[in-house]
């Protein structure tokens, strides 16, 4: 492997990757669902609780100051990691789903009316579908779809027609099913040319590739912490300042106000305006440690490693199983990330993942919260192996071995 990461050393930093399941070393290939966490993340969260646990933006005592600084320095680190112009444009949320809901509720209910079009792609996760369908049901907004071709790439043939009347383009940066990578900048430019706003669901991108939200020329970007070595329960929305400034609060409560009287309230400035109630402080701190971990490795190196490993996986699996194995999504490694949705002979994905589990191999079986795309691919479910920085060729080999064993077990 000509990758630039020392994967053995990286693996050693992840306690969960040291354990065994069913008497075999664990082979974790479900990072598309959630990543594992390295010691520095776990230790940062423990240290926060043990040493500086206090509510933020409130007390004037030492540990409260420390906790506040920890939250704000995490926000700054995230802004830098995303290539955002300002930390004040980064709003903490629970996850990418909440980030998209925030935009749908606040920006959507302010800016969209009957007949306005929200354009989605057929690659979207339910998180970037259902909030817009809710808005459609409530406001009479039209939801329109950019289709995909047989390899699960966007079919942009009729893009001009599709863009007619569009007020918002909401698209994934990387498919969580096929790994397909839409041409973000091209689509953002096309959407801006018709006056539309652009939201990118970057959940499956940010953990794997260098990110520059300004290079995409996006207006909103939704991200989540737990797929990029951070804890669950923390995500963020980046938005262009002038858009965020003009948006009303989403959730109401403490922290998000400038003033409250018996007659009403004045909302705080961004980002506090969108951060009602006590935030998950330990998770924000843990996320910062995850960002530091990734920056130390270097996202260019992470991306190069994953590209090499994805190429190895495509080659190994195709050579070994030929037509018995369908790998959904683009066949060219330049067009895709390390997410491999598999169909193996007639073995149902649930049964496949069950046999794989007996070999310690963790893959996800199901519709991956992308049912419209599954319908286009002509399947109800797939078994999905998703690669990350702590995987190497031995993990792919273990997957191939377990697939062969599953073939024997279900030999019809």
């Amino acid at each position, binding site marked *: 492997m000509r990758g630039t990461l020392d994967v053995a050393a990286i693996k050693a930093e992840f306690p969960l990757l040291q354990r065994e399941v069913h008497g075999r070393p664990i082979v974790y290939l479900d990072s598309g669902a959630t990543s594992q966490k390295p010691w520095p993340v776990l230790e940062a969260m423990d240290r926060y609780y043990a040493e500086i646990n206090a509510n933020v933006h409130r007390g004037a005592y030492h540990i409260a100051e420390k906790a506040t600084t920890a939250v704000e320095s995490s926000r700054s680190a995230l802004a830098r990691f995303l290539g955002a112009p300002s930390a004040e444009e980064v709003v903490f949320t629970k996850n990418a789903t909440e980030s998209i809901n925030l935009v749908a509720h606040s920006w959507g209910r302010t800016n969209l009316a009957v007949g306005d079009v929200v354009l989605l792609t057929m690659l979207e996760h339910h998180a970037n579908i259902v909030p817009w369908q809710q808005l459609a049901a409530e406001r009479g907004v039209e939801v329109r779809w950019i289709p995909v071709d047989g390899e699960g790439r966007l079919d942009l043939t009729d893009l001009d027609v599709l863009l007619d009347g569009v007020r918002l383009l909401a698209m994934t940066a990387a498919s969580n099913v096929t790994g397909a990578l839409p041409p973000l900048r091209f689509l953002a430019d096309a959407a801006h040319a018709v006056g539309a706003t652009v939201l990118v669901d970057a959940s499956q991108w940010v953990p794997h590739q260098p990110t520059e939200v300004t290079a995409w020329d996006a207006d909103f970007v939704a991200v989540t912490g737990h797929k990029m070595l951070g804890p669950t329960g923390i995500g963020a929305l980046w938005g262009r300042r002038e858009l965020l400034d003009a948006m009303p609060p989403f959730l109401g409560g403490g922290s998000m106000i400038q003033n409250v009287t018996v007659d009403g309230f004045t909302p705080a400035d961004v980002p506090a305006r969108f951060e009602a109630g006590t935030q998950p402080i330990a998770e924000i701190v843990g996320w910062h440690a995850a960002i530091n971990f990734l920056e130390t490795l270097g996202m260019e190196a992470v991306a190069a490693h994953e590209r090499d490993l994805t190429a190895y996986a495509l080659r190994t699996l195709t050579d070994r199983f030929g037509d018995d194995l369908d790998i959904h999504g683009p066949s060219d490694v330049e067009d895709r990330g390390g997410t491999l949705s598999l169909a193996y002979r007639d073995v149902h994905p*649930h*049964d496949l993942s*069950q046999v794989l589990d*007996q070999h310690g191999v963790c893959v996800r079986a*199901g519709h991956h919260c992308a049912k419209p795309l599954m319908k286009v691919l002509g399947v*109800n479910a797939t078994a999905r192996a998703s690669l990350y920085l702590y995987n190497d060729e031995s993990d792919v080999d273990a997957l191939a071995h377990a697939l062969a064993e599953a073939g024997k077990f279900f030999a019809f």
Partner: protein
Amino acid sequence: MAGLEDLYREIILDHYRNPRNRGELEVPPATLAEGFNPLCGDEIRVYLQVDGETISDMRIGGQGCSISQSSASMMSTAVVGKSVDEARDVLRQFKEMMSIHEHGLDHDEDAPANDRPGASGLGDLEALRGVVKFPVRIKCATLGWNTLDQAIAQAGDKSSE
């Protein structure tokens, strides 16, 4: 440790490879109920023909994993010819077998989860008892049964019209 043989008993694989009562019935007179497993996208159709008090025929459609398909196949052989009340009783016993008891989840895979072979009158359906050791798969095993439950309710509504 729960191994694959606990889940994929021979009779289960047999029903998966050679599903019984697969197909459709004309609706009406038959009743059709559809069930979905929102986790994996599996879907099942139960066509139910009730004559008087008796389930005279049943057909199973849809697609899914070996557990959901074999469970539905075994269900069809277990309840065709029985009265609606008897079918309800089998249904209740089956779902009881598929329920996770608290102690079953305390000790990871080593727990004796509701493991009392032969304790019920479920016959071949006993083979599905091992599914309880794989909690994620319980919804697969019960998909057909919940759909049957729905079909029986619909058939009851129709006959009381």
